[in-house]
């Protein structure tokens, strides 16, 4: 069975539904005689699903300062109080709190010329998750949901898309690609363990199924079909031996130490275990990057956690030979102002900010683009959200120009516009 995955089931109760249209596009194309093409596509899609490509998004909620992370500006008016440190790659310097990350710089490509226009947290987060500007009329799928839909393993009991901390969802792609939320990484998630022995649990499910079919025969068939699909998925998770993937105590104490004994570190370790077990997209969130006040003080503990988790993750993936097929992306919704404000903090600044990528075919040890000397604008090679998203798609072998039908009947590309940042892969 294909749990946590899209199935060709009509969840609507009427002849025409916009969502069913989305689901039926491929069927329609087949019927129209373009069979060979579709056939070809689906074969290669199957191959892709088996390659186990995956992405781990390290999301810095609040908008991390580029100056205190990957684009320090020592000895300028924008410097702030942090020093720059050398990394494993000569010529690349990052901010002083990132000592572990500095050691794996040979695997990391830093983009210092990210640029966008949105300076509101919610709207910018939405854009940096979906690639689209928010609109009241259509809820765009996050890139993670799109990727899970394109290359996720259909045979998996555990979710193909997981988020450690709440995130943007599947939008119009629907419930099959909604991220599975883990709030306390390290333990089996809430409500996943059954409260009765397996045999009795099975019996209960059997009774539930029989009673539900009675309701279906009274006119609730669509509701029941949908409900049982979800209950199937849920109970296959409950009963799966794979749920032990959530239990981090199976890892050595020293490795856990290396990742860090905090939610972010645990989230990173969980992400690696999930990728190993076959999941496709994992987001690990770190909060507290909205540093309007006392930035040099408050950023340090946060940066040190993320530094440890991220560096351990990259090293661990590499050591296990998983880095080539696993893309790790570090980013937030925007950057922060060059000027330190009156409260010793930095304010929102989308005009120029940084992102960092590792693995998934990305050539590490390089800096792409540059900000101006004072960090107030892009100096060289601007990279937009859609450029970044196209590049992510390239790494995962997902076609960014593939169209899905939105609820308002308008086809929407996975990524609308943008070009691949080719330097990443050369």
């Amino acid at each position: 069975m294909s749990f946590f995955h899209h199935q060709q089931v009509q969840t609507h109760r009427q002849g025409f539904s916009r969502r069913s249209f989305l689901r039926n596009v491929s069927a329609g194309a087949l019927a129209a005689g373009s069979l060979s093409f579709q056939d070809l596509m689906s074969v290669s899609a199957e191959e892709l699903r088996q390659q186990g490509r995956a992405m781990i998004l390290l999301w810095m909620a609040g908008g991390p300062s580029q100056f205190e992370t990957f684009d320090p500006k020592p000895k300028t008016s924008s410097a702030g109080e942090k020093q720059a440190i050398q990394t494993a790659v000569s010529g690349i310097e990052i901010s002083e709190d990132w000592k572990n990350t500095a050691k794996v710089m040979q695997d990391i490509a830093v983009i210092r010329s990210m640029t966008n226009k949105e300076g509101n947290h919610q709207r910018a987060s939405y854009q940096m998750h979906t690639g689209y500007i928010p609109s009241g009329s259509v809820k765009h799928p996050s890139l993670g949901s799109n990727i899970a839909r394109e290359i996720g393993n259909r045979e998996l009991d555990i979710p193909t898309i997981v988020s450690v901390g709440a995130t943007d969802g599947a939008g119009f792609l629907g419930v099959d690609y909604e991220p599975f939320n883990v709030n306390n990484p390290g333990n089996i998630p809430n409500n996943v363990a059954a409260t009765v022995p397996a045999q009795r649990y099975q019996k209960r499910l059997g009774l539930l199924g029989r009673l539900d079919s009675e309701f279906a025969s009274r006119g609730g068939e669509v509701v029941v079909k949908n409900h049982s699909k979800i209950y199937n998925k849920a109970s296959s998770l409950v009963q799966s031996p794979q749920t032990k993937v959530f239990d981090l105590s199976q890892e050595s104490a020293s490795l856990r130490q290396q990742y860090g004994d905090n939610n972010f570190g645990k989230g990173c370790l969980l992400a690696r275990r999930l990728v190993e077990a076959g999941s496709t997209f994992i987001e690990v969130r770190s909060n507290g990057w909205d540093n309007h006040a006392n930035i040099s003080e408050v950023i340090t503990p946060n940066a040190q956690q993320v530094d440890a988790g991220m560096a351990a993750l990259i090293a661990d993936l590499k050591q296990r030979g998983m880095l080539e097929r696993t893309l790790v992306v570090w980013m937030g919704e925007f950057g922060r102002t060059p000027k330190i404000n009156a409260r010793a903090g930095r304010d929102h600044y989308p005009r120029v900010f940084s992102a960092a990528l590792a693995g998934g075919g990305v050539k590490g040890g390089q800096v792409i683009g540059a900000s101006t000397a004072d960090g107030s604008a892009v100096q060289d090679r601007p990279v937009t959200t859609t450029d970044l998203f196209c590049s992510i798609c390239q790494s995962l072998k997902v076609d960014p120009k593939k169209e899905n039908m939105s609820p308002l009947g308008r086809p929407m590309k996975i990524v609308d516009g943008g070009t691949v940042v080719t330097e990443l892969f050369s």
Partner: protein
Amino acid sequence: MMNFSAKRMTQIVCIFLFTVSVPLCHSSTFAATKSSPQSNKGDRVGETAVAEKVDQLIEAELKKSKVEPAKLANDEDFLRRVTFDLAGRKPSSSEVILFGLDSNPDKRNTVIDELLKSEDYAVNWARYWRDVIYLRATDMRARINEAEFEEWMTTQFKENKSWDQIATDLLTATGDVRENGNTALIFAHEGDPAELAAETSRIFLGIQIQCANCHDHPTDKWKRNSFHELAAFFPRVRVRPVRDATPRTFEVVSMDQGNQVAQRMQMLQDPTMLFKAFDRNRDGKLTEQEVQRTRMARNFERLVSRADKNGDKALTAEEIKSIPVPDNARRFNTEYHMPDLMDPTAAGTVVHPVLFVGTKAPEGMKDLERRETLSKFLTAKSNPWFARAIVNRLWAEMLGEGFYMPIDDIGPERSAIYPEVLEALADGFTASGYDLKWLCRTITNTRAYQRVMQTKIEGQPHIPFAAQSPTRLRGDQIFTAITQVFGVDDLQANRGGGDRRYRGNRTARGQFSSLFTFDPSTAQEEITGDVPQALFMMNSSAINGLLGTSGNNKLAQIAREFPKNEHAIQELYLLTLSREPSESEMKICQEYIQATDKRNEALEDLMWSLVNSSEFITKR
């Protein structure tokens, strides 16, 4: 026919004797409204008269398509449906039985009236509107006054405030958000004019004009101007933190004057006044000597350092104008500026308030005058969209689909199904003085609302309103139903969950709601539920803790008081699904109990299955 245990029978007789007189007096009061005649457009028309007209129109339409409408639902189904819709809860076992036994032909009317009078009605709809507003909030801090909004909205429904009054209060709100629940909409969008324009239009007119934010509307007649002219009603609204308040709070205020910063900035952008006042020798230059001992003296040196291009230590008008406007300048504007798409950093052009379906407002009004004027335009009887939007919304909420879908994307270039039905309801609603209870009473009194569900025949197209569509209950309704089933006031809250700054995350209802809630403006076919919801219903300790047959749980009582399996099964069905089991269901359940070693264990399994069933979370 019902076949109750002796214990249940005694209860039934007692309650029946006690309450039998009540429905009769209700039906006589109702007769007064029923008899009001069909009259001129504009006069208040009785609910049943409009309901009848609606049904005739729908049935005529169905007849044209040669579709036989489904028969009316039985009492059990009707009572459960209307109790959830109007009061947000399931009917109790006694209510189901008594309603079935009541021989009054007007009993459906009567129960509708009783539900509308209940406190539950007010609370149910207040929660509905809380979800409408907060699930689209663009500023998440807004959650701090969710509870205050719910309370305020409950009072509005309890007092049956008219819809135009509620809309006006939401749009003209001011003050501390923790003391003024009606600041919800403005606070949810941080007072941002563009977001407020989009939401005001979507919620009160059902028109999605925000597409016109950046370009002329792709499918409607609205121009880009229309959107910004609507936003121009809100440029003086400000949401700001209340200083030193604990707990932290915000206030909605009017900024009519601009402040000193704005005045100074204006002065720099247009320095004519400065030169009139200070350029004593009229040489077109301001010097330090000239501004000595004036209010410009203090900042003059700084101005020179920023703007003096030729190094003569004096400033020309051109030099002063060259001082760049700070990034946050928009905050200090008292007029709305439509952004320049070609140059997003430019100040944009000033736009004055006009409601696209109404008229132009005078220029330069104060904040509250603007918002009051907008409210008047919106709620004017000459604006048909105000009534259509709410009629479409409530009809869709109760029948599972609207005349327009999605329910908040209506408008002159959208096409409605049964448009004349919508018009009849909207006219009646307008004539009632935008009376929401009138609207609820009218909708629930239609045959269209009261029909039975029908099995879908393969290949046959779906015909709206020919039969009841099963619809998903909202999170709050399911939560209430769970507490009713287990006979508890509340469930056990999860201690670790969510951001604890928000009260909603600390209560069991709040936690349940964040797991089960969906935006009430979403079409039914898109509400499918998800795995975490299923996991909660199956495995959460909150529910499983109440499922045992030991102690004094509801289930333990049933197991004890109804020793015959048949009666216990009957009780469980009444309790969870507010109906009797069918013959085949009875058979399945009896067989299950017989095949299980321990009776109590079997009853636990049965209750578990019923609470986890599709039907439990569905309005049938």
